[in-house]
């Protein structure tokens, strides 16, 4: 009897938890290292004999204090939140409409248009920032966070379109056809039938779009100059690296706090995220 009970536990330990350990280590190590470094004293940080993964000489919160008092870190965080939320919202609206059209409507060139959308996503931002800087200047948005709100959808819209296109194709066409037979318009079929069913896919797109916006570097670097307009990615590296001097403690403190919003949204929406990613994996 005892053997029968122990088997599921052993299966869990050896079949689930142990295989997950290397992945957990791989995923969490950077956070652990950032956290440890952010609480180390300068003397220990500069001591090559010290063990880099442990704090031996006591915890120091000065790096966090410096981050908040010596730099406009909260302003950068606010800017990152505003830019990421707005560009995600804009991209989601445009991407949803485009994805629905490409997945559902029959028109000439729909397939090639879908491929073109994907190819657009593949053009690297390191090539696009130069022509886009002309667009930003023509719009009079240079050196403001609105330059980013306008330019981030250039890579987010193709991405969300492609992702949602795949999701919409997994939703049976019949359910919206039923609604339309009952008198719903195409718009009503989309908003009342398809979108509620597509919530996991949409949340998945939101998560990805938000994360990409949050981490974006090259556009934020080239379109923004003023400290009060910078996002976290640019602000932290501009103010906490001075030539060949790296303020490691504060840098890591900035990295830890900068990762918090992303961690939070993934924690809250993990289930949706997983089901959004695995849509279509099972035949219904």
């Amino acid at each position: 009897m005892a053997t029968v009970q122990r088997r599921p536990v052993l299966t869990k330990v050896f079949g689930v938890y142990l295989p997950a350990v290397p992945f957990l280590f791989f995923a969490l190590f950077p956070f652990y290292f950032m956290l440890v470094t952010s609480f180390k004293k300068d003397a220990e940080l500069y001591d090559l004999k010290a063990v880099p993964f442990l704090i031996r000489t006591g915890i120091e919160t000065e790096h966090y204090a410096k981050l908040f008092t010596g730099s406009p870190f909260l302003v950068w965080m606010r800017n990152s939140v505003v830019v990421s939320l707005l560009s995600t919202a804009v991209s989601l609206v445009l991407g949803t409409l485009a994805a629905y059209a490409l997945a559902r409507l029959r028109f000439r060139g729909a397939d090639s248009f879908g491929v073109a959308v994907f190819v657009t996503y593949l053009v690297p931002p390191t090539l696009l920032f130069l022509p886009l800087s002309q667009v930003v200047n023509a719009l009079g948005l240079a050196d403001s966070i609105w330059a980013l709100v306008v330019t981030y959808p250039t890579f987010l819209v193709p991405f969300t379109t492609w992702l949602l296109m795949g999701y919409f194709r997994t939703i049976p066409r019949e359910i919206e056809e039923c609604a339309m037979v009952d008198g719903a318009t195409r718009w009503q079929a989309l908003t009342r039938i398809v979108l509620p069913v597509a919530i996991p896919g949409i949340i998945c797109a939101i998560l990805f779009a938000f994360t990409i916006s949050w981490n974006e570097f090259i556009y934020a670097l080239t379109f923004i100059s003023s400290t009060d307009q910078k996002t976290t990615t640019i602000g932290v590296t501009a103010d906490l690296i001075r030539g060949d001097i790296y303020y490691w403690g504060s840098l890591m403190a900035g990295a830890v706090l900068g990762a918090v919003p992303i961690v939070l949204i993934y924690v809250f929406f993990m289930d949706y995220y997983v089901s959004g990613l695995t849509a279509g994996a099972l035949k219904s």
Partner: protein
Amino acid sequence: MDARQTDHTSGILHTPINRRALLRTGGRTLAGIAGIVAAGRAPAGWAARELSLLTAVNYAPSSDVKLDELGKRFSKQAGVNVRIDHLQSVQMPAKLSAQLMGKAGHDIISLEMHYPWLYRTGLVDVSDICSDLAKKHGEWYSFAKEHAYVNGQWLGIPYLFISFPGSHRIDLFEKVGEKAPDTWEDLLRAGRKLKKLGHPVGFAISQTTDSVTTLYSILWCYGAKDVAEDGKTIAISSKETEAAIDYVKVLYTDAMDPAVLSWDNASNNQWLNSGRGSWIHNPISHYVVAKEKKLPVVEHTGFHPSPAGPGGRHTVGVPRSLAIWKFAKNVEVAREFLRWFFEPAQYHEWIMSGDNYNHPMWRDMETHPVWDVDPKYKPLKAIAQYSHLYGWPAPPDERIQVITNSYIIPNMFARVVTNTSSPKDAIRWAEGEIKRVFEKK
């Protein structure tokens, strides 16, 4: 056919509103209003007079603080709103390229090395200011002039240079019976003993600008060069280059920390300040930090001239200048600011603020008090006399900057010290890469 129609009675030009025009105008207006609301300030163009500066983050933080302070003072005096932004020096090329491409950006920008050559099409001629400054201070150091004097015009006003002396641990060198190395051979001899003692010597052999600087210095000291004086002949393939490579290979094997292959620009600072390293080739930033953080190595750290070799004593001087974009909104105000900044009172105040990390650019300032802010800086005084731009003795050229940014020189050395290539093969590879850069023009 032009869609616009003129009302002949009033002379007003009417543009029929079509869907595209409406979308364009509406989009701009919405984006503009949204931008103003979010930024909480009017666009730069609306301000009465605004001057914007973009400089690379100064390695001596107090210098940037002083520059901001001077900007505020100029604001009060001239009734101009001065805004100063700072960016990592490695991020400057992307920013400058975007500004040049978009023909909009800051009024004044700081440029280093061959950037005045790279961005010459967008820069204002400031020869008038430079000739006035030359009357006051005499000539700039030759490498400073080569950096900003482009095709007969001054396109930037050199305002600082960063030097690369040798930095050593006085106590450790004494312990092995050695003095500060005067030549690269001295360094090898001392380095062998120091490595046995557990305190090797080191400089980056990796894709960093520090590595480019040190390895150019060694090449020159052994009589080698990558491009000849005519600026056309690729001269990297020589016995002198082989001798320099042989030297670095022996030094790496016998006296250096193998970690140098993975170093970034910060690693050597950290390494010396940690107490493990005994010698590096670097600007004095590590010492500035050690003083600021009160690290124990401060009292044991010393400086000496960049080592010499059979070909003489040479190293890299990294000059920076202030330049004005042609498309700047306030070219005249920018000129006004630069004239004011370089007046002795302001310039003296600014140069003194950086603990001599920023060296003055004129020969007549070799007696400037900034050289005496710390008695340890004495060997730095004459360093400009044997400092050169990357690519020396070839004349300055934007293609040299491309060679630098492609890290061809460090990669050539890295191939040999890691036994990936023989010296001859590595040189052949570098020659091919340099040729490719030169053929692109």
